[in-house]
C-alpha cells in the first residue's frame, strides 16, 4: 500500500522495521567509572528530593506543597494563590528556557543524569540486578523455560517493582495534598477515592515506564528528544566515538602493536554496545537515540586502560573538536538564550520581592444604591473581602480617604484575618450630602497591617448618593 512498496528497503529501514516489529529486550551491562558515579550521585540526590522533601515541615506546614485541594502553593515561606498564577507561569517559562540554554551548551546531560525517566529506569535496573543477577544471568534466565525457580525470581522482582511504584505514586500525590494526612488516611484505610485513583495511576505509570517501556519512552514518546536537535549545533557537548583514532577496528593481543597490524585503537570488544541503555552502537556516529548517559565512555576507558592505550576513544566532545577545530562556548545562540533568561529571571525576582500578599475586594451592597439616615446623612453599605496571603495571622486597620468628613462604621476597629484565609467584613460609610460632589464618587479604602508594618494596600470603591442640588 505504501509508496515505497516494491522497492527493497535500505539496511537502515530494515533495522528500524525490526526494532518496531518486536523490541529486543535490552540488558544493559553494569558499569563503574567516574560518570557512573556521577549518575548514581544525581540519582540518589534526585530520588532523595522526590521521596524526602514532602515530609519536611516549615513553619508548621509542609515545606513544599502544591496544595491542589486548598488551591494554595506553599514553597517554604512563600504562599502562592491562584491570583499568583503569573509567577508560576513565569517560573515554567524560565525552566523551559534554561533547558534550551543547557541543551545548546551541554547537549543531553539532562537526559543522561536528571530526567525522571532515566532516574527511575536506573533504579529499576538496579533492583533487577539485585534480584536477577548480572547481564549474563538475566539473559540466561530469560531463555530458560518457566520453572519454579524462574517464577520465584520473576515474581520477586515484579513484587518489589510494584511496591516501589506504589510508594512512588503515594509520594507523588503527597506533593499535591498534605502528605502527613495522606499517610494517616493510608494506614487507617480511609483514603478518598480520587487520591486512591491517582496513587494507582501514577504508580502504574512508574511501573510501566521504568519497568517495561524504558528506552522506548525516550525514543518514541519524549517530545524533548525529538526537538532537541533544533538546539544542537557543532559546538554542543556530546558523547562521541573518535573514529579517526578507533578505525579500523579489530581484535588484537594486548602485546601487539596496532599500528603494525594496521589497526586503530578500537578492539571491537562491543562493551560499549553492551552497556548502552538504549541498545545502540556509539561507533555508528551520532544517533538521536543516544541519551548521553556516558556509560559507554566509562566502559571504553576501562578497556583502554586494560590495553594500555590512552583513555578517551569514546568521550565527551563536540562535533567541531572531533574535526580538530576549536570549540566556541560563547556564540550568538548562547548569548540570546542567556539574555532572555536573565531578563525573565530578574522580572521574577522583582515581582516576587514587590508582591503584596494582601488583597482587598470591595463589593457594594446590591440591593440599594444608598440609604438616608435619620440625621440626613447618605449611607452606602459594602462587604469587604480581605485575603491574607501571608503565612501569619494579621490584624488590619481600615481607613478611608477621598471624600471629606466621611465616617466609617464597622463592627470593630480592627480586622483579624487568619493566615491564608479570606474574611468578609460588612462596613457602612456615611457622609453629609453637602460633601458629595456628584452622585457617583470615588472613595479610597486603605488597609494597613498592625502586625506586619509595611503590609498595606489601597483600593478604590464607588460611593453613590443623590444628584447634588444645583
Amino acid at each position: 500500500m505504501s509508496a515505497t512498496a516494491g522497492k527493497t528497503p535500505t539496511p537502515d529501514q530494515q533495522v528500524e522495521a525490526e526494532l518496531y516489529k518486536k523490541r529486543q529486550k535490552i540488558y544493559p551491562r553494569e558499569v563503574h567509572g567516574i560518570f557512573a558515579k556521577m549518575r548514581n550521585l544525581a540519582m540518589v540526590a534526585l530520588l532523595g528530593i522526590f521521596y524526602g522533601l514532602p515530609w519536611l515541615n516549615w513553619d508548621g506546614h509542609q515545606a513544599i506543597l502544591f496544595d491542589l485541594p486548598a488551591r494554595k502553593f506553599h514553597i517554604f515561606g512563600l504562599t502562592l494563590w491562584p491570583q499568583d498564577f503569573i509567577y508560576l507561569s513565569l517560573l515554567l517559562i524560565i525552566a523551559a528556557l534554561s533547558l534550551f540554554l543547557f541543551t545548546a551548551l551541554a547537549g543531553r546531560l539532562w537526559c543522561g543524569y536528571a530526567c525522571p525517566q532515566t532516574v527511575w529506569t536506573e533504579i529499576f535496573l538496579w533492583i533487577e540486578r539485585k534480584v536477577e543477577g548480572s547481564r549474563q544471568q538475566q539473559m540466561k534466565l530469560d531463555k530458560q523455560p518457566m520453572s519454579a525457580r524462574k517464577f520465584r525470581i520473576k515474581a520477586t522482582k515484579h513484587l518489589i517493582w510494584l511496591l516501589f511504584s506504589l510508594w512512588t505514586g503515594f509520594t507523588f500525590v503527597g506533593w499535591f495534598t498534605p502528605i502527613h494526612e495522606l499517610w494517616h488516611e493510608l494506614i487507617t484505610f480511609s483514603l478518598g477515592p480520587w487520591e486512591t485513583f491517582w496513587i494507582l495511576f501514577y504508580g502504574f505509570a512508574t511501573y510501566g515506564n521504568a519497568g517495561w517501556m524504558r528506552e522506548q519512552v525516550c525514543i518514541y514518546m519524549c517530545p524533548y528528544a525529538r526537538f532537541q536537535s533544533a538546539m544542537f549545533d557543532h559546538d554542543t557537548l556530546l558523547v562521541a566515538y573518535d573514529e579517526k583514532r578507533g578505525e579500523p577496528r579489530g581484535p588484537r593481543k594486548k602485546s601487539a602493536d596496532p599500528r603494525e597490524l594496521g589497526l586503530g585503537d578500537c578492539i571491537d570488544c562491543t562493551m560499549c554496545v553492551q552497556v548502552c541503555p538504549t541498545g545502540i552502537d556509539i561507533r555508528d556516529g551520532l544517533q538521536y537515540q543516544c541519551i548521553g548517559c556516558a556509560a559507554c565512555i566509562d566502559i571504553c576507558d576501562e578497556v583502554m586502560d586494560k590495553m594500555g592505550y590512552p583513555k578517551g576513544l569514546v568521550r565527551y566532545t563536540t562535533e567541531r573538536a572531533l574535526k580538530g577545530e576549536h570549540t566556541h562556548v560563547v556564540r550568538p545562540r548562547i548569548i540570546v538564550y542567556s539574555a532572555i533568561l536573565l531578563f525573565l529571571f530578574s522580572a521574577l525576582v522583582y515581582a516576587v520581592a514587590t508582591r503584596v500578599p494582601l488583597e482587598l475586594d470591595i463589593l457594594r451592597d446590591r440591593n440599594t444604591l444608598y440609604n438616608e439616615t435619620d440625621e440626613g446623612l447618605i449611607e452606602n453599605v459594602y462587604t469587604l473581602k480581605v485575603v491574607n496571603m501571608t503565612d501569619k495571622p494579621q490584624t488590619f486597620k481600615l481607613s478611608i480617604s477621598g471624600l471629606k468628613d466621611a465616617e466609617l462604621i464597622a463592627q470593630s476597629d480592627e480586622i483579624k484575618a487568619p493566615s491564608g484565609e479570606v474574611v468578609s467584613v460588612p462596613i457602612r460609610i456615611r457622609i453629609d450630602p453637602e460633601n458629595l460632589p456628584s452622585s457617583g464618587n470615588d472613595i479610597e479604602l486603605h488597609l494597613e497591617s498592625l502586625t506586619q508594618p509595611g503590609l498595606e494596600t489601597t483600593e478604590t470603591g464607588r460611593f453613590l448618593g443623590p444628584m447634588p442640588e444645583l
Partner: protein
Amino acid sequence: MQKNPTIYKDQQELPTIQRVISVLWPSFLVASISTFLFFAVFDPIDLGRLAGYPELTRIGGYTIGFFFFWVMTAFSCGLTCYFRKPVHPPTIK
C-alpha cells in the same frame, strides 16, 4: 547532523502500538497543560455548584476535568490519524 529515524511515507506502516501511542500520548500532554490552565482560572467547587453537584471535591473536579480533556484531545488526535489514510490507494508501479 543527527541521524534521523527512517521516515515512513505512510503512517499505515507504523505498527498498531505506535499508532496507539501517537494518539494517546500527545493528547495526554495537551490535556495536562489544558487542565493546568483551566483550573488556574476556575475553581472546581464553584463549577460543581453551578452544575448542580455541590458535593464535588476539588480533587474530584480536577480528575474529571483532566479526563474530559484527555478524551476530547484523544478524539481529535484519533481523527487526525484516521484522516491521514489516503482516499485512493496509491497504485503500485
